[in-house]
């Protein structure tokens, strides 16, 4: 009986492990943080998270500079400056038809926006052209931000075949097919 129980636990552990692998690797060719995310398999949808990250406009800067969210996430844009800003983006994932202007609002107030379309969203300010920020919208909940050396790790990715994309500010995206089976390696080399 005891032997049977141990065997069952081992089999279950092996099953679970095989269902939730990791993708890790390194993004090279660029310096600083990169974002790596898993593209959505055809026909697969994911529930939108309820958490609403905040992007602040403070000291004439977007803080944090890069925010990564899952598609469907509502982002709160806060203005902590005593000067007025204007948040807009000229495109989403390079699609200029998705340009949007959030307008201007007073210090201390927030303005929400729900990002439905995946891709990188360059945040700009009409008034202060030096202000720059990014929202990287991942189509799946499987994404990670690399450390400054480029190392990243995406956890809890179900086994299967995916397309994985690496994004870095100012560099060309790179996508590659990755077959996830347990711990899987995927390195990227980006160029400007």
């Amino acid at each position, binding site marked *: 009986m005891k032997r049977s129980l141990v065997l069952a636990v081992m089999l279950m552990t092996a099953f679970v492990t095989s269902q939730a692998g990791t993708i890790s690797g390194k993004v090279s060719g660029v310096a600083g943080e990169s974002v790596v995310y898993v593209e959505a398999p055809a026909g697969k949808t994911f529930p939108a998270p309820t958490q609403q990250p905040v992007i602040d406009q403070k000291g004439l*800067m977007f803080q944090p500079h890069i925010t990564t969210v899952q598609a469907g996430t509502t982002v709160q844009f806060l203005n902590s400056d*005593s000067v007025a800003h204007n948040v*807009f983006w000229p495109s989403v994932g390079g699609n200029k038809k998705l340009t949007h202007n959030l*307008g*201007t609002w007073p210090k201390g107030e927030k303005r929400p926006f729900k990002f439905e379309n995946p891709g990188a969203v360059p945040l700009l300010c009409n*008034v*202060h052209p030096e202000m720059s920020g990014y929202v990287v919208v991942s189509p799946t909940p499987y994404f990670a931000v690399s450390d400054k050396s480029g190392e990243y790790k995406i956890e809890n990715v179900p086994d299967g075949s995916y397309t994985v994309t690496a994004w870095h500010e100012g560099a060309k995206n790179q996508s590659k097919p990755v077959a996830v089976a347990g711990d899987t390696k995927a390195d990227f080399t980006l160029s400007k």
Partner: protein
Amino acid sequence: MSAWRRVSFFCAFVVTIMLLTGSTYAIPAFSRQYGTSCTTCHIDFPKLNDFGKAFKDAGFKFPKDDETFIKVPPVMLGAPAQKDMWPHVIFPGTIPGMPQIGLRFNQFFQYTGSSANKYYSGQVLPGTTPGQLLTPTIPNTDFEAGFFSIFMAGNFGSDIAFWVDDDLSVAGLNANGELGDGYLRFVNVGRFFKLPTDSLTLRVGQFELDLPFTQARSINISPYDIYTQANFGASNQNVNNVIQLADAAHGVEFSGGHQYGGYHYSVAVVDQSTSGTSAGNPANVPTPTGGQIGVPGVGFVSDTNYKDIYARFSYRFNLEKDPASRHDVQAAGATGPRDHTYLSLGTFYYEGRSNQHFTGYASDGVTPAVISAREPFYRVGGDFSFNYRNFNLFGLYMYGHDHDLVLNSAIVPTGFIPGAAVTFNGGFLEADYLVLPWVMTIMRWDRVQSTADFLSGAASGNYFSPAGSTRDRFTPGVQFLIHPNIKASFEYQYRPQQALYYSSSGQTVEPFRTNVATGALEFVY
């Protein structure tokens, strides 16, 4: 052609070239200090937007929460706790964390219509053999080096602002320039007297008067004619007033209010800008840095205790419907903050005395004598500015009046008797339209009416022989920011008619215009 006329023409041409290189400044040091773009404060630098006006009003700092925007922290000149020991004074204060220095260089290319040389056509060079003709001296095309300038501006904390701009080089190899503005500005000193915020600010030093529209920091290549209009009487008059409204003045200025909405005033008490003795004249004591009396040094340039007064008052009506937006520094728009839609109305008044010294001998023919004519004068005018989005229409009218004191005797004068006043009037109207954030189009009309200039055959500023009392100039222009700190500017001056000959009935013979096309290239860093 008389010698003085030839000289005046030459001087006018030189002055024209010099004025064409009028000072324009943006402050890259602020970009560095705050890590922000030029467009935070400027529309087509150096023209200020509403935020830039507020930044300047506040003493070259952000109107609110300045410290949160500074990317280069200031250097404390003492521990903050020192202030506990001296709570009512500004000690220890700060200095900017980086040198607030900016540099600027510009250069010009000018095309002048060949009609300019009609001035010399058929003219006899005075003092030479009759029949010897002057050759044309104004080239059709001309490259001119402009200014290489250094400027510094910033805030020492505790609302003390400073500004110094100096031209290291002016239009020539190793040429010497001169100080433009150099002053300290004590912002909101009214707080010491419990006056409303920003109702009293003090400025001390050398500065451009609080003109309705700045000349020193204008975007135009050529200056406003009315700003460079001196007032010289005709031959039977004794007015020789060199003051021009665009001149920098030495003195103190009290001001208050804001340039971006509501009231604004200023009252300046400045040195008489007339015939002061030269700074290097050894007879002009004291010599504060020049050593002992009799040794050339740096002396005070004014030769009189009399001070001129300049006053200005304006009120700007911000026309936004939303009260919060109307009272804010900038209006809130669908695509971000922008300059208000506004109508500004203002008036200004300058009063002074023009000094003229006459040296000679008393009736005994031996005793040296000096008599001085102190001729009161004033300049008065009004101005308006209307702004809608990227379109700005503004104008100014000014009337100038100089009392005339003529010698009471042509042989041995002992004093003066009143003569006919010498007056002039004029102004300008300008429309600026920012087509793109980096393209500015300009249309301008300048007018000056001066009968004395016409009768004298020589006008101050840009013209040497006006064909009539009225001088109109139309100046379209376009400017491109080919880089945020590099600007290419072009303007065409359709200038007033000039004439050398008059028929027996007084009609001009062969009038001509010295139209000029000018291109300028400048950068600041």
